[in-house]
């Protein structure tokens, strides 16, 4: 039995190495291409331009981290632990802001504002819009954690006479910190590589700087320097998240069959709670609604003959990408579980780096790689999605795995189970929530993903997001509205299919 275990571990290690290599190779190809294409005399300093871009990116990360973190945690807590009118609907609605492509959100707000004589431009607006677009990460992960973790502990603290607020601060929040940290880190990474909306709002950022230096100024080396700066911000975020998680490491068996009564909010408290939870989805709907209200004359909808193929392609791609990404994330998480060696941890960290790179840069890496090898565009596209969104499904899984006490595994092994049996019979049932949430996030992310889809897709293969971009970049917000609302609808359908099933555990 020892031999087969060692063999198993070697196989698992090989899988981790393979996944991390697949994730890293496009970036290496890009670095290589940049190195070959460098021009003599290009300076490797940030320059005043680069410093400004760095400042703005850091400001956006901090601003969004605080605003999105507080918003996501508050809504996650309220909707997981308290009951108020409209709670179920509102919880599903939290996916709306994330499902509407941020660049169209920005474009419609700017366009609407300009009709009213209001200039929507600059850092403040960027932070507000990014928080709206990305707090959902914090919400989903913290909500999952709040509803899974330690209701009995909370009950105990309440029965010991600790008030609701103090119970939240002293018990619930520390237990959910790993999940909140993971959510904030994910949303902050999204901010680091956000390009379209930030550029429309006129904020010079690192992600735009990377592309401009490279494409417009032909300075590949300078672009590589900026990419390294962006990568270090992300590495810092991931490290911070890890630290938080280690500090608050507590094992807890989720949902052990005990029914969990919610705290009933009454009177003004329930109104306040419902109001706060409803705020972000309302804003997300309000922006396109305002635009449609003032710009309805310019509203154009392509016929269903044009829209249907777009829909099928978007859905097909998103489903395939979700499968690929979830599979890879699960494998990585399992290996980390069984072989908690530093090398495995580092490799699995590397594998998540694709999320830190702006999509347009990753796309270039895959182009540089895929062209000479004549790889099929669809294969490249799936590779790109997997690389880019691995971190999305991985973060939640890692955090959730850490809540399962190792004693469970040990018990299963001592009873003669192999790792795959432990996975099938113990881990997967316990991880159903995080896996579903991870899958949902990847699905929605892929449906609205733009730079990879735009640059890697085959001939005659437009998707909803591509069509939104084509119209929006031609400054035709009215024509972009119909496909964008469809993307939002899919996010909503996916959320309503998944979120209730999270409850039934």
């Amino acid at each position, binding site marked *: 039995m020892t031999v087969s275990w060692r063999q198993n571990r070697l196989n698992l290690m090989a899988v981790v190495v393979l996944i991390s290599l697949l994730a890293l190779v496009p970036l290496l190809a890009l670095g290589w291409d940049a190195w070959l294409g460098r021009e003599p005399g290009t300076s490797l300093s940030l320059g005043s331009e680069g410093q400004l871009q760095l400042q703005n990116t850091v400001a956006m990360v901090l601003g969004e981290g605080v605003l999105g973190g507080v918003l996501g945690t508050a809504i996650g807590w309220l909707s997981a632990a308290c009951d108020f009118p409209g709670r179920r609907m509102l919880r599903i609605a939290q996916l709306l802001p994330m499902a509407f492509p941020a660049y169209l959100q920005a474009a419609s707000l700017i366009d609407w504002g300009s009709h009213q004589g209001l200039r929507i431009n600059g850092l403040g607006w960027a932070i507000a819009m990014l928080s709206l677009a990305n707090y959902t990460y914090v919400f989903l992960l913290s909500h999952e954690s709040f509803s899974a973790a330690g209701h009995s502990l909370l009950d105990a603290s309440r029965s010991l006479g600790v008030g609701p607020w103090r119970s939240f601060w002293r018990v619930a929040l520390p237990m959910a910190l790993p999940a909140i940290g993971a959510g904030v880190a994910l949303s902050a990474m999204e901010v680091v590589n956000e390009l379209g909306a930030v550029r429309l709002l006129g904020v010079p950022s690192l992600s735009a700087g990377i592309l401009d230096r490279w494409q*417009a100024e032909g300075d590949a080396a300078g672009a590589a320097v900026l990419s390294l700066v962006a990568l270090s911000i992300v590495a810092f975020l991931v490290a911070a998240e890890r630290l938080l998680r280690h500090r608050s490491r507590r094992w807890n068996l989720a949902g052990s069959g005990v029914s969990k009564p919610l705290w009933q909010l009454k009177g003004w408290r329930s109104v306040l709670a419902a109001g706060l939870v409803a705020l972000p989805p309302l804003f997300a709907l309000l922006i396109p609604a305002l635009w449609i209200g003032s710009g309805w004359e310019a509203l154009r909808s392509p016929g269903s003959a044009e829209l249907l193929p777009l829909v099928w392609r978007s859905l097909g791609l998103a489903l395939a990408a979700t499968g690929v990404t979830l599979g890879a994330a699960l494998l990585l998480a399992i290996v980390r579980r069984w072989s908690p060696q530093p090398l495995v941890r580092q490799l699995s960290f590397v594998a998540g780096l694709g999320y830190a790179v702006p999509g347009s840069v990753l796309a270039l890496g895959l182009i540089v790689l895929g062209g000479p090898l004549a790889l099929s565009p669809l294969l490249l596209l799936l590779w790109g999605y997997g690389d880019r969104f691995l971190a999305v499904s991985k973060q939640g899984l890692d955090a959730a795995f850490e809540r399962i006490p190792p004693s469970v595994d040990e018990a299963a092994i001592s009873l003669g189970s192999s790792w795959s049996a432990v996975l099938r019979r113990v881990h997967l049932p316990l991880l159903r929530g995080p896996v579903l949430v991870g899958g949902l996030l990847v699905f929605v992310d892929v449906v609205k993903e733009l730079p990879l889809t735009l*640059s890697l897709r085959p*001939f005659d293969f437009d998707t909803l997001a591509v069509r939104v971009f084509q119209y929006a970049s*031609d400054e035709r917000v009215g024509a972009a509205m119909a496909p964008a609302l469809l993307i939002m609808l899919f996010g909503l359908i996916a959320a309503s299919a998944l979120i209730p099933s999270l409850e039934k555990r």
Partner: protein
Amino acid sequence: MVMLRRTVPLLGALLLSLAGPTAAQSQEVRVYSGRHYSSDNAIYERFTKATGIKVRLLESNDSAIVERLRSEGLNSSADVLILVDAAKLANATELGLFQPIGSAELMRDVPLSLRDPKGRWFGLTRRVRAFAVNPKLVNPASLKTYADLAKPALRGKLCLRNRASVYNQSLVADQLILRGEPATRAWIRGMVANLADEVYTSDTVMARDVARAICGVGVLNSYYVARMLSGQTGSADRDSAQKLRIIYPNPVHVNVSGAGVTRHAKNRSQAIRLIEFLTSSTAAEGFAQASFEYPLQGFGNNPILSRFGTFTPDGLSAAQLGAKAKAAVKLMADNGWQ
């Protein structure tokens, strides 16, 4: 896991079926295009109707398709590359992405200044960098050349698009060639000092602010104002645009969108036929009608465009503009054009 094993091949099959027929058909031409105007499709459909050759299209942003074509090399299945902006066309030519074609029809239809002298690409449409002026704030007669934008009289009255706009980059390259670096640097600094507000990321939004007298003059491609005047973007935009006067500086900077046959084209003759069709007067009319660009020769017969009057191009070639593109971007960055 079992479920996963079953669904993955299924999804693969689904994706393949979505991509449509992939077998090479004899009568088709594959196009990489940096243009994305929904109206272009109508013109490709007319081509298919006239010739029976099917157009397969991949529209993306310029830099991505250039990079893709470059790295695909021999493996590429693209036959035609369409790009917007002279500098980008020149860059693609320099990278060796096009092959020369000797078509008498193309040589006749496309003026020398709007094509590669060696026949590697041919212009399709012209777009003109113009001034949108609000006569309440600025006397239109006081603006005759691009140099006038830096005059102190315009302090706090000028609106510009950002540096990322390729049309601004090519305009600066144009001025670099015509007026030299010191004058262009001073011109950029003068304009930056004249700005009424931070640079814009959208031409339409900027045009509205000129109409609202937040600034007196904005620098843009005239087709955005033409589109507003047409009512396509709503009656409020039409009313705004009616408050604007379009001024073409003399001489004016003309930018092009153009097409060439890729070096490793598999359907070369079909590709040439497509480009011949796109540069012919029938297609030119289609382009100009739908996207309010100017045809290669003359000023078209679009009633909205004819309101803007005529212009005299400065005659610089795309190769000249392309050679100065990087220097132009650097000059803009170094002198405060955000």
